């Protein structure tokens, strides 16, 4: 079943490519249908997971046996949460692409190709396979930014390509070193071998891997590709970059960094947490200075990703629970935020905060959802972000209480830049620009917005079901360290 999650979007990509001959509407319909089908299959996978089916690993084929490379797929609660998020956000992204008319050649094919890659990353249980999917995701991302982005698109595309590829290189060297010791790329084989290896080697490998993940997440100071990429990318791609691609790094850190090298991670945990706190504050301060609402969201996203790393570094059950929950929650919230900035550009033709005053008066739906999304992002209780941040802080406080006090101080700062943005952009007197803004809302705008709003609220009001599921993964991870 898991293989279908990769195969369907992969086949869909080709189908959409050929459907384009009969017009863009056809290509779009094929892509939309594919994304819906993928979502259905991921729900089916969730169903069989919940009914107790062993899925870790679920499927394994020989692939390049010469080099001990297998095609092993598996899913635990963490993978499944991210698979579901991926499937959902691709539906959202395709709906967000509805108005892309110019130069549509290959557009939907590239999107679906990226979906296949992401599914692969979250399902692969073989390091080589993981790496291949990891790189596959980057290629469509590059073309999508370069082909459909804003004014500085080629600069931004080149930057993300070179930058994250550099990060991947570190990671790949780490993988090779592991392979050399274990003679296999399989997670399970490596994890068995590693126990007997000396700490110095593991430390070195860990650092290589960590740099790779830190580029992707990203942590300050590895983040400078991000504001340009997120801002210049077309709306649907911004949704995917922030919602999903950043999660690849966090997922890798947990799945590989912590699971394969638990003691090594433990010895670096404090340093990583410090780096994450720096990241949280640095990005929050940078967000405060932005005039472009999309750039503000981009920096805010870096700040929130820092929280995920804090949760991971706490290395206890509640902290890791929070980190995984935050991956899902942040994915939903940031997707909503970027979706809205896309609507803003379409309706008001600007993202510059000072020109947007009085948005609520003119376009109430867009304005109020922007208020909602901002509140969700600043961690308002009752919405999903709070559940994640609370768990992360509780976990962090148990491990490093002084860092937790510091991290708590970032919350008013986050509230500050969002509320200041709202004060200028959403409320106040109607600006000249906003006077001429459109206020219509099409179905392909309303549906994804409402779905995201409802999910963010439900997960915030009653997080227990998702948290209980996630907890199975966290427990397994924490058991490796011998903690609780």
């Amino acid at each position, binding site marked *: 079943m898991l293989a279908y999650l990769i195969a369907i979007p992969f086949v869909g990509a080709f189908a959409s490519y050929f459907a384009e001959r009969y017009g863009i509407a056809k290509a779009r319909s094929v892509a939309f249908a594919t994304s819906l089908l993928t979502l259905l299959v991921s729900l089916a996978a969730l169903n069989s997971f919940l009914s107790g089916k062993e899925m870790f690993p679920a499927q394994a084929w020989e692939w390049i046996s010469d*080099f001990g490379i297998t095609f092993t797929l598996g899913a635990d609660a963490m993978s499944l949460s991210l698979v579901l998020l991926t499937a959902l956000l691709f539906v959202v992204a395709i709906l967000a692409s509805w108005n892309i008319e110019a130069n549509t050649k290959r557009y939907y094919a590239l999107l679906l190709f990226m979906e296949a890659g992401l599914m692969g990353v979250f399902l692969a249980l073989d390091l080589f396979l993981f790496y291949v999917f990891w790189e596959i995701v980057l290629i469509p991302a590059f073309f999508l930014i370069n082909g459909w982005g804003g004014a500085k698109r080629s600069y931004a595309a080149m930057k993300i390509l070179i930058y994250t590829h550099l990060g991947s290189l570190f990671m790949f060297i780490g993988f090779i070193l592991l392979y050399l010791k274990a003679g296999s790329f399989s997670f399970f084989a490596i994890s068995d071998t590693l126990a007997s290896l000396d700490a110095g080697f593991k430390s070195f490998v860990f650092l290589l891997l960590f740099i790779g993940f830190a580029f992707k997440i990203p942590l300050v100071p590895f983040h400078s590709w991000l504001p340009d990429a997120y801002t210049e990318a077309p709306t649907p791609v911004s949704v995917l970059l922030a919602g999903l691609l950043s999660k690849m790094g966090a997922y890798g850190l947990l799945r590989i960094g912590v699971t394969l090298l638990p003691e090594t991670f433990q010895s670096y945990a404090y340093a990583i947490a410090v780096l994450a706190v720096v990241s949280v504050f640095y990005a929050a301060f940078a967000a405060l200075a932005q005039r472009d609402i999309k750039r503000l969201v981009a920096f805010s996203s870096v700040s929130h990703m820092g929280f995920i790393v804090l949760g991971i570094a706490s290395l206890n059950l509640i902290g890791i629970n929070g980190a995984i929950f935050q991956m899902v929650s942040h994915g939903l919230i940031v997707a909503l935020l970027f979706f809205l900035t896309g609507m803003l550009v379409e309706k008001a033709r600007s993202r510059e905060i000072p020109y947007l005053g009085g948005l609520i008066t003119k376009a109430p739906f867009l304005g109020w959802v922007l208020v909602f999304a901002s509140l969700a992002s600043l961690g308002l209780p009752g919405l999903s972000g709070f559940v994640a941040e609370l768990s992360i802080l509780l976990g962090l406080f148990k491990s490093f209480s002084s860092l937790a006090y510091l991290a708590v101080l970032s919350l008013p700062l986050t509230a500050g830049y969002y509320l200041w943005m709202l004060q200028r952009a959403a409320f106040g007197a109607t600006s000249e620009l906003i006077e001429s803004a459109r206020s219509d809302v099409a179905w392909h705008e309303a549906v994804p917005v409402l779905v995201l709003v409802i999910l963010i609220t439900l997960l915030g009001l009653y997080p*227990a079901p998702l948290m209980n599921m996630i907890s199975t993964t966290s427990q397994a991870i924490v058991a490796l360290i011998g903690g609780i």
Partner: protein
Amino acid sequence: MIEQAWLIPLFPVISFLIILLFGKRMKEGGGYVAVAFVGLSMLVSLLTIRDVFSVGRYESEGISWLGSEAFRFGFLIDPLAAVMLFVVSFVGFLIVVYSLGYMHGDPGVQRYYAEISLFIASMLALIIANNLVFLFISWELVGLCSYLLIGFWYRKPSAASAAKKAFLVTRVGDIMLLAGILVLYAKFGTLNLSELFELAPSAAPATLTLASLLLFGGAVGKSAQFPLHVWLPDAMEGPTTVSALIHAATMVKAGVYLVARAYPLFTPESLFVVAWIGGITALMAATMAVVMTDLKRVIAYSTVSHLGFMTLALGVGGYAAGVFHLLNHSFFKALLFLSAGAVIHAVHSQDIRDMGGLWKRMPITGTAFFIGAWSLSGLPPWSGFWSKDDILAAVYGYSTPLFIIAAFAALLSAVYISRLFFIVFTGKESEAVKHAHEAPRVMTVPLMILSLGALFSGFVRFAGFEEFVLNTLPAELAEHFAAHEGGHGFVMSLSIALAALGIVLTGITYYKPVLSAEKIRTTFKPLHTLLIDRYYLDHIYLFFATKVVKDTSTVINAIDAYFIDGLVNGIGKATAKAGEVMRRIQTGITQDYASWLLLGASLLLIIARLTGGAA
């Protein structure tokens, strides 16, 4: 009904949803729905309170919110919760009814009733929460609703700004509360209040002091205590009904309630801090109330001052006195705000210098204001007198300097409220007042009911209120604090004398001008400026926000744009130069990217194979 107490917050939530979804098509934007559901909620509250008299205390099983037992959310009804439920649901209900008149014709009326329903719901949930996280969630939702309601007329830049200020300043308190939750969870592994109270006596006092002070930090923000009181006077930007709801019944009471709720966690050391913060707040706010010229702002500072009294009472161990004042204050302050609202509605101004001689034009409103003012001034026999007297008696036994502070603040209470009354309702009719009319019935009836409350709520003291409230605390604690209470001849005479003195002083300045207000102002010019400028605290915060925080952000942004990004671009350029050579053998980097990737990977694998790593 006590086992169905969860219905109390649920009704206004339903009202919120109905109005949000269908309010547009309803009469008064769904105002009647709000009245009906808040009314139902009040009904269940009253039935629940009746059960408290017989059962005493009830805690529900609850549901697991986050999978772990520490986050099991249920409700806890005890005498303290009962008092608070009464205040919020009853006063809240009257304010919603009053809104039908006050908000009539406002284009945003649907949003108003949706938000006010959610506001009341969150406040009611906060009261019955038995878990600190549950409490915190409701607490923040209360904050959210106040943000939305203060900024209700969001087109006004001052309203949008005041809303943001209220949210951010209280958020500073909120993170302290959150930190307190972190400490308690790390220490006790539970956040259930009853379990915490059981475990608390065995914990190290230092931990408890830290945790309780952090919780108190939350109360300082929410209940507008010094030094986080600055948001409240600005919060007047919303509709007056909102001010009444925030000040009288709900939001600001949440902080005092939190201290009372978590009382068994407080140590003598932390209570010392609580007492002094309360005392300072009571005095400082009262001094500012004396000089302000905006009708609502005077009442706002008065609220801050009286919240200070409640905090002070809790700090010095006058548990029942603090809760008692909370009850009485709700009535007279809601009354004052709503009658002020009626005045503003009629005069179309908030500046008391535009007013005068309103008594003849608005007799019902005037009477209501008079009753509220009398009660607040602390003259017997109405409610404000009894609770203020209990507080002073409790402080008297605790510390002399604090007693002097509290007594002076009590004197000033009488001064500022009678000043307001004399200026607005007596004297010559001003131009703005000439066209004023009495408010409609839907507004005056709630005023009459609240007047009854402001007059008589003080008499519950003689119906065993103190014992009832003390039942909230564990038996040993209750016994300990009961000793502090009780009438005190000297204190009572002093309290009456001070109130009378305050009124006489104001009377000879504003009613029969023997003293000239102008002259007093010029004589004490520096003091007057200090008070008008609110002790410069707002300036200091503004400096911090604009200079420290925003400048840091500008610097970091510059570093990011020029240094880090510059570095990256520099490396990029250098690499590009080196790449010139490569470019000749390449058709273009991007197209061949995938093949390079595979080639690179294979090379590495071959190297690996050659070095003999693979089995």
